[in-house]
């Protein structure tokens, strides 16, 4: 950054907010001044020249990979369903590793085939984290607000604590917290070193009445922080996380059907505006923090 630019190094975009091929998304982010990107497995496997070519494109872009998403409906299955999900997890971990990405996101299961028994959920999450250890990957476990058993972050935190693996922590998504109206005070119990990723998004409704509406809003109509009606809450959340000691990455998890129909640079610049607002106005990071040099691979 130069002295005339804001400090947005802690913030990154997610490829899901942009239309088009991976390469164009990466250049748009880069051009807007971002230094990191959150990737989906689909970004790699959908590449016309294969996933290894996609990995190379990401490396060539110079963007650091914030995290790799998303392993769904993993925990609580048994028999052949469990074995199948283990294969999926291993495949995703291999791609994550090839990207030199240190965080993989897993979100809580929505599957009606999954058990709700706690020891089973704990055992499966331990197994997932164990699979990730040799690859130096951290698993960020996120409570999806329509998850079957785990649907609020305090529950995800409890299970992460119980599983007690050094590389298993919390993936925190503001959308789900606001959607379920989980009290901000609950953040107090979190260990900031075990928050492996924070995803931020705003949305346009004050209230979400049904689970169906929650799902459709989450998947089609999220907006960048500062663009919706929850800006004050987002600012408080980010300040609170900072006070707790969280110094990791913030990624904009913005699924929006309209953004998929807009020029990439337009969307990337909206994201930049959000990053500047959070970096400059909310966290007041006008200069790089002292000792903020990152060791390679640290999440």
């Amino acid at each position, binding site marked *: 950054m130069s002295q005339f630019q804001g400090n947005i190094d802690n913030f990154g975009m997610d490829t899901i907010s942009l239309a088009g091929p991976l390469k164009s998304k990466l250049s748009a982010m880069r051009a807007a001044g971002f230094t990191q990107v959150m990737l989906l497995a689909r970004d790699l496997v959908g590449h016309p020249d294969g996933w290894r070519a996609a990995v190379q494109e990401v490396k060539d872009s110079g963007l650091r990979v914030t995290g790799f998403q998303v392993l769904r409906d993993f925990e609580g299955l048994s028999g052949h369903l469990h074995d199948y999900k283990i294969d999926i997890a291993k495949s995703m971990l291999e791609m994550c590793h090839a990207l030199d990405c240190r965080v993989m996101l897993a979100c809580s299961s929505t599957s009606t085939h999954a058990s709700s028994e706690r020891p089973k959920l704990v055992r499966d999450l331990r197994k997932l*984290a*164990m699979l990730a*250890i040799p690859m130096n990957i951290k698993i960020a476990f996120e409570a999806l607000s329509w998850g079957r058993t785990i649907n609020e972050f305090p529950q995800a935190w409890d299970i992460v604590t119980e599983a007690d693996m050094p*590389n298993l922590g919390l993936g925190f998504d503001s959308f789900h917290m606001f959607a379920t109206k989980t009290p901000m005070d609950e953040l107090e119990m979190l260990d900031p070193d075990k928050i492996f990723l924070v995803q931020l998004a705003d949305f346009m409704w004050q209230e979400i009445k049904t689970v169906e509406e929650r799902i459709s809003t989450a998947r089609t109509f999220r907006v960048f922080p500062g663009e919706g009606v929850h800006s004050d809450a987002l600012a408080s959340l980010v300040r609170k996380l900072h006070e707790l000691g969280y110094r990791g990455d913030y990624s904009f998890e913005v699924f929006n059907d309209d953004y998929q129909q807009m020029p990439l640079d337009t969307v990337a610049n909206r994201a930049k505006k959000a990053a500047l607002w959070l970096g400059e106005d909310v966290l007041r990071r006008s200069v790089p923090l002292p000792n903020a040099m990152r*060791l*390679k691979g640290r999440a």
Partner: protein
Amino acid sequence: MNHPHAAVSVGARSGADREAIGEGPNPLGVLGIEFIEYATSKPQALGNVLETMGFKPVARHRSREILLYRQGELNIIVNAHGDGAVLTERPVIAAIALRVQDAAAAYRHALDRGAWAVPVHVEVMELNIPAIHGVGTSRIYFVDRHGDFSIYDVDFTPIPTVNQHPAAVVGLHLFGVVQYIGNDRSDDWTEFYSALFGFTALAPDVSFGILPKGRILQSPCHTFYLQLIEPEPGLLDVEDDECLQRIGLGTPDVPAAVAALRQLGVEFVAAKDAAHAARGALARTTIGGAMFELVHHLPG
């Protein structure tokens, strides 16, 4: 059950589907290290180094360019076959073989807890030795044939006229393996070895030998150690260098072992003082990668 390893709790035998029986301290029934495997494209150069360290070549693999070296209880396999992997001149520790009660059960136990299986490629009439992935490109084998009828009897042919059980130089035995790890990775690897195999971390003030850095894990059978070493603080870009770095050989008398190995042609890094010299020694080898450390230790 009056079996000495009644703590083995695997599969259906554990009765876990009927009642909650916790795992014993040695869930895999680990008994020690059966062999250490090096991979190199220059097997003779490594062989020469091993011979100066007191090892003798005793057998050849039936179908691949693999040699078995031995001294006392310690087996070292030098693999120049590669199995499709690219071999480097610099020898690397490619595998640790754990001696266990029941290899199939140990393998299953590890996979159930999140280990990565290694696909096997065996030739006819060769043993299928189950393996999981370890640090870097290394593997961890599970071997349950030892003693009178060993894996070597099946897969190896003895070199004629050579004593199959050469004595160890001044009681040399395997003390442990040093593993280099990335920044902030001690907890991850401690969890890996404790959850999968039952290793326990020793208190930070316990150390052996002359290179005490890092965290020491004791094997569940209390016969050997793993030492996890992170990079010096502030070093960048070392993340990908995780590997099994060297083996430690225990001996009841370090100065005597140093003197005996010097006779064979080994050079040692000079000791600071007599106390230091009694605790351990570091052998300088002519080829990179194959480093040996001597540690004052009585065989377990």
